[in-house]
């Protein structure tokens, strides 16, 4: 059904205005169905990953409810509003990031939260996941595309400034996601392939510099552990080895729901948060992983479809970047849990326990739905 809609709409006139009750409340039914399917699956896995804790599922259900409300609210706002407010949002976010470094609170050696009197505690870096691509899209879409080199440079600066601030917290995972979101905007804007090539060259040069001057010891340790988990089987390597064992022992069909020994016997660390995909792989097997990947893929394809059919450059760039950020989430999380990438604190999107990332992600989906459902007869 979803796939067929997708095919049908590919040939539809991009300038047409969608009709029907869904567009009245500015919701894309296909995306909605896919999200509900994914999150339901997620709750089932979470119940097992949290070792049968119904409280945990309830708490997560409430967060999902809140996130859906947030999505609905974001969907109601016209993309013009986002474009108008993008610079201010970005500035507020930047100030908040500086404030976090100065007066932030947190735990385990990282300052990530801002507790302003009279406001609930919040994490400015989450705001930047939306604000940075918006700002980059705003800046680049003011002029014709593809952008001139100088504008590309300024856009990248706008991206790397908050990224650098977030690294200082330190929060490598979030800064990577924020950076990717911004860089995708620049890429979608149509910078020449030579610049893209140069960018990759730059990264390969920057990597050793990062290694020696920016990365903390614990981050280096993670990279080293990835390369040879057996070198430290009782320390950092423990996590990777246990999660690979959980995944591998699942086999084709898995050990069955609630039957995963690795997670239920506490061998698997963080089984309800960052490593939840290992629980899924252990209990539902390779088949379960294929289902999960199919759901993610459909969601991303739908998002890219929305992006491709957006009416103006700002919307396109923003939608494209948000879609790809969502994919990067998936890729980094599954990659790290399966031992392809070093361990960075990136949750499995929409499934891992924890509210912050779900709310941010659903807000992004709200923006995408807004882009898809607010259409004008004349191109802006």
């Amino acid at each position, binding site marked *: 059904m979803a796939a067929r809609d997708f095919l049908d709409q590919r040939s539809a006139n991009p300038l047409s205005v969608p009709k029907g009750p869904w567009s009245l409340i500015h919701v894309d039914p296909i995306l909605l169905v896919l999200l509900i399917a994914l999150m339901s699956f997620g709750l089932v896995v979470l119940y097992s990953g949290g070792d049968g804790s119904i409280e945990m599922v309830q708490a997560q259900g409430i967060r999902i409810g809140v996130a859906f409300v947030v999505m609905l609210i974001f969907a109601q706002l016209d993309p013009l509003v986002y474009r108008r407010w993008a610079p201010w949002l970005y500035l507020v976010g930047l100030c908040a990031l500086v404030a976090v470094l100065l007066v932030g609170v947190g735990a385990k050696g990282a300052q990530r939260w801002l507790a302003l009197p009279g406001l609930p505690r919040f994490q400015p870096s989450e705001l930047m996941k939306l604000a940075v691509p918006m700002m980059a899209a705003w800046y680049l879409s003011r002029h014709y595309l593809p952008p001139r080199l100088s504008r590309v440079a300024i856009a990248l600066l706008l991206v790397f400034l908050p990224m650098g601030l977030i690294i200082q917290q330190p929060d490598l995972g979030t800064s990577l996601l924020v950076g990717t979101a911004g860089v995708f905007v620049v890429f*979608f804007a149509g910078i020449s392939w030579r610049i893209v090539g140069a960018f990759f060259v730059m990264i390969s040069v920057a990597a050793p510099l990062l290694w020696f001057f920016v990365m903390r010891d614990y981050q280096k340790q993670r990279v080293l552990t990835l390369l040879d988990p057996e070198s430290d089987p*009782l320390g950092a390597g423990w996590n990777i080895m246990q999660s*690979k064992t959980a995944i591998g022992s699942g086999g084709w069909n898995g050990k069955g729901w609630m039957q995963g020994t690795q997670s239920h016997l506490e061998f698997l660390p963080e089984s309800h948060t960052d490593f939840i995909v290992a629980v899924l792989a252990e209990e539902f097997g390779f088949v379960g992983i294929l289902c999960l*990947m199919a759901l993610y893929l459909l969601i*991303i394809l739908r998002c890219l479809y929305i992006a*491709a059919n957006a009416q103006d450059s700002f919307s396109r760039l923003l939608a494209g970047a948000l879609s790809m950020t969502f994919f990067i989430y998936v*890729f980094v999380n599954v990659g790290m849990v399966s031992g*392809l990438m070093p361990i960075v604190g990136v949750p499995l999107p929409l499934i891992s326990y924890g509210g912050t990332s779900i709310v941010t992600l659903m807000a992004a989906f709200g923006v995408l739905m807004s882009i898809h459902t607010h259409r004008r007869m004349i191109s802006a």
Partner: protein
Amino acid sequence: MPWGEFKDTAAERRLFQRRTLVVLIVLLVLMAVLIARMYQLQVIQHETFSTISDKNRVQVQSVAPTRGLVYDRNGVLLAENRPVFGVTIVPERVENLEETLADLQAILSISDEDLARFERRLDEPRRPFQELPLRYDLTEKEIASMAVHRHRLPGVEVDAELVRSYPHAEMTAHALGYVSRINRSELQRIDPVNYAGTNYIGKSGVERFYEKLLHGSVGYQHVETNARGRTLRVLERQKPVPGEDIRLHLDMRLQTRAFELLEGRRGAVVAIEPETGGVLALASVPGFDANLFVTGIGVEAYRELNESLDKPLFNRALRGQYPPGSTIKPMFGIAGLDSNTTTREREIWDPGYYKLNPRGRRYRDWKRSGHGWVNLDSAIAESCDIYFYDLAVEMGVDVMHDYLTRFGFGRDASLDVTGASEGLVPSRDWKRGTKDEPWYPGDSVNMGIGQGYNLATPFQLATATAVMANRGRWARPRLLMDVIGRDTVHDFLPEDNYEDIVLDNPDDWNFIIQGMRNVMHGSSGTARAAGRDATYEMAGKTGTAQVFSLAEDEEYEEEDVRERLRDHALFIGFAPVDNPKIAVAVIVENGGSGSGTAAPIARKMFDAWLLEMSGQPASVVAGALAGEPQ
């Protein structure tokens, strides 16, 4: 929108869509990479990870068997198992190890040794969440204060294990031996499977000899554990077979009596039931508290025991090798008659000394004036040395060696008593081998009265006395009476294969025993004071062993020197004469004369056994079990 710039929206859309296509391809490739990775782990390497996963969760735990109990002949418990509490720490669950250790030090006494051992284990490679022992054997008070403080000490646990305990402490240490932690060299020889859960092993005595019987067989359980090593459920289990409970011939009442009689002295008493060879009492005084050694004795306490002048760790009964002195004379009497070297009637003149040849050295009798005319009977009763000097020279070393060996001297005649010394019966070969000298007639003279090279343990003297009481029939001495719940004890005891001493004229036994009876009851018997007013007849022989040397550099108080240079007092004997129930050997170190010190102790042992204790089993004894252990 900025002004003055031409925006080609259609071109921008086409540009975006081209980029989207590129992104889409990259996305699909990366997605394929993830799926391929999952395929690799879940399908290709599934077997490997399945195995690792099972190894993770399923552990084989050994379940140590409960060590068998040891009872005395009346069912009095001699060795039991008591739960001992220790403190372990799971470092992963402790927030601040230093603080926790400091807190624990305020609650418990933790020695530097304990700390050092704990830190060594901390540095060794180990599983996460493994428990590391910190202290063993908490006192009642420490257990209580741990219970109070434990809630604020996460990661600190109190564990219990069953540990050997000897309720009679000092009194049974030398008779039973003891168990202690398995050491490195024992690890080499024990079956690692059967001892997988066992921390203790018999080090000496009964505990060592019957180790296999007492230990039992290890059990197993396959348990599912979580990452913290906590057992969640038992998947499969094979129960351990507990060790056998055994009963010894030892009578705790008699053993206690022996200790009381030797109170304040150094010495040994061994009592054997001649009929069975059962060891009724095996006392070495002073004793030591074997419980100290079970969980490991402190360096200070060990040094104190080890360096004590009274040598409490030394098992005098089994390992104390003394010149047997005159107590050897009845055996030589048998040897002399059976080898036709002398006759019952033969008399010799005792002027108070003996000379090998007219111009030779004078070997003195203990009685300077001499005994006058003596025959074999009176030579035993009065302990005449001259008669036995003469007899020894006449018999020669080969005959003496032969008969003494047949009485169990010079070898370990025990069936199941570990650590017994062999003593020494000199021979021509021995002397050539160790001294590189021939056997001189003078050596025979000294040997005739149990001095010279002769060495025997109290245990050997008691054994030989039992053989004498049995009129030559051998029942090798043993501790094990029965294994509870088993019909026969023969499966567990070594073969009782000593050849009985058969005399050409079996009545010679009664003749020599008559001499020993006269020691106790004769008008000039050396121990007639000890035999006075008895309601039964007893046979005995006194002896004294000279203390030869004292290292010159050892500094003793003068009083001590005088005391410790006195002769050792010896006595052997059995009773009643016609139907022997008990054979006893007594040695009191530096006790002076055998008749004055050792014989009265033996008399009291006889009285206790024959008058107080015979026919009165367990129920009267305080501390005995309510019923027979079977």
